[in-house]
């Protein structure tokens, strides 16, 4: 279980904006949670606080496991963030290398992971030789190979075209079902959230608060345009717009 009780305000120099006040969220182990909100609502900040890349102004995050935080967390960003001078293989091993692992055990894990994301045969490729979808698969492999207890994903497929994105959803669920780890997935895309998540948390307002906490109790594989799926999507959209003061219009 991961418990978040956090307040985040930017410093006076940065505008003194209050991102969220005493935001409370509990995430049970093994759950796939999507955090949905408009851009600028603070969902990425929340994710970065969970991942330890930013610190909360007050409160924080407690993890249901012992030991360090970062060693147990995999992070996937919107950009693949691959090291351009490392091959696919060397990129995937990054997290293991940072942990000080080496030798045949490391090689086996990297190879197994490349099998899972179907990138065998591309070990020696450099990032510039990969398509956007392949690069993001490398980033996912890099996050999963350390066998994290928690995987944080910050709009990882936002830069991909619709078809690649749909393939990546299927791919991600396949990998997730193989490992059954907790996933916190930030997106502004409602159908993406319904396709992927066990549970959708809607963030809105300023300071942001949890507007809705919805269980998506549909069997997988889900459909893109199934009636049940669309019903869930409509509910999320309703919560996203509910009580939203006339803000600047956004696409």
């Amino acid at each position: 279980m991961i418990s978040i009780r956090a307040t985040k305000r930017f410093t006076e120099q940065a505008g003194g904006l209050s991102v969220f006040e005493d935001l409370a969220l509990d995430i049970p182990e093994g759950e796939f949670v999507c955090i949905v909100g408009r851009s600028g609502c603070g969902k990425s900040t929340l994710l970065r606080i969970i991942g330890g890349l930013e610190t909360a102004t007050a409160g924080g995050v407690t993890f249901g496991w012992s030991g360090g935080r970062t060693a147990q967390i995999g992070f996937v960003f919107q950009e693949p963030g691959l090291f351009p001078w490392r091959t696919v293989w060397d990129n995937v091993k990054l997290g293991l290398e940072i942990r000080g692992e080496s030798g045949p055990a490391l090689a086996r894990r990297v190879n197994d992971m490349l099998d899972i994301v179907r990138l065998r045969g591309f070990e020696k490729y450099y990032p510039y030789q990969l398509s956007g979808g392949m690069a993001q698969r490398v980033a996912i492999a890099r996050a999963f190979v350390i066998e994290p207890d928690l995987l944080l994903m910050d709009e990882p497929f936002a830069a991909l075209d619709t078809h690649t994105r749909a393939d990546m959803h299927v791919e991600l669920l396949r990998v997730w079902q193989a490992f059954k780890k907790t996933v916190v997935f930030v997106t502004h895309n409602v159908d993406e959230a319904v396709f992927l998540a066990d549970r959708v948390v809607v963030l809105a307002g300023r300071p942001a608060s949890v507007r809705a906490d919805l269980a998506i109790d549909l069997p997988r594989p889900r459909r893109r345009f199934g009636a049940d799926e669309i019903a869930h999507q409509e509910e999320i959209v309703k919560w996203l717009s509910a009580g939203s003061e006339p803000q600047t219009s956004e696409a």
Partner: protein
Amino acid sequence: MRAAAVRGLRVFALNVVVLAAAWVVWDFTARAAHSSFFPSPVSVAQAFREILAAGDVQGHQLWAHIGASLVRVFVGFAAAAVTGVALGMVLGLKRGVYDSTKSILEPMRFIPPIAWIPLAIVLLRGFSRYAFIIWIGAFFPILVGTMAGIQRVSPLLVEVSKAFGARRPFIVFKVVTPGALPEIVAGMRIGLGVGWMCIVAAEMIGGEELGLGRLMMNYADLLRVDMVIVGMITIGIIGYATNELLLLLEQRLFAWRRAVKV
């Protein structure tokens, strides 16, 4: 692969044509000038043959001059590479140190190496004098290249490493350094070029017998302009060759940057 070979041949042929044209223009100008102080390409070629066969007036071989100059440049350059990269890393990573020292660093950068020669004569002796002038010339391009390279490293890569729990040594040596390396090496290539250009000026003041600058100075005193031009061409060719070598090294080292090739 075939297309590349054809293109290489074309480039080579074009360069031969341009060289021949330059020769013709030079020859024509020399004939028109009709002065013993403006030698024709043929007489320079003869001077080349002369120094290769018999050495210079003091009996030194051309390769001995080249060797002496090269050693000085490489020592000065090596010192500049070590100090330039080290200081560039510190200044690039610690913005505050740069901000508080830029009032001395930035003006120093614009003082030409030749302007240091009087001070070098007063303060230094022999080999260290040359090495110092080369160092001054090569240091700043390397320093600036290193700092620029560090600024160019994607913050996302640092973030990714931090998310995996990387500590500062990993970030400095495994993220920032390789990320900045293309600029560092480019700075070294420029620095080596500047250092090589400084050697002539530096050797003109020295009391030694060897060195390409010395060679040219001796022949200038004898009004042997053809031999001076031999020295000039030698310096040019060696500079060109080392630059090409480093370019080749860059291409090998940074194959991962092939994407930028047009």
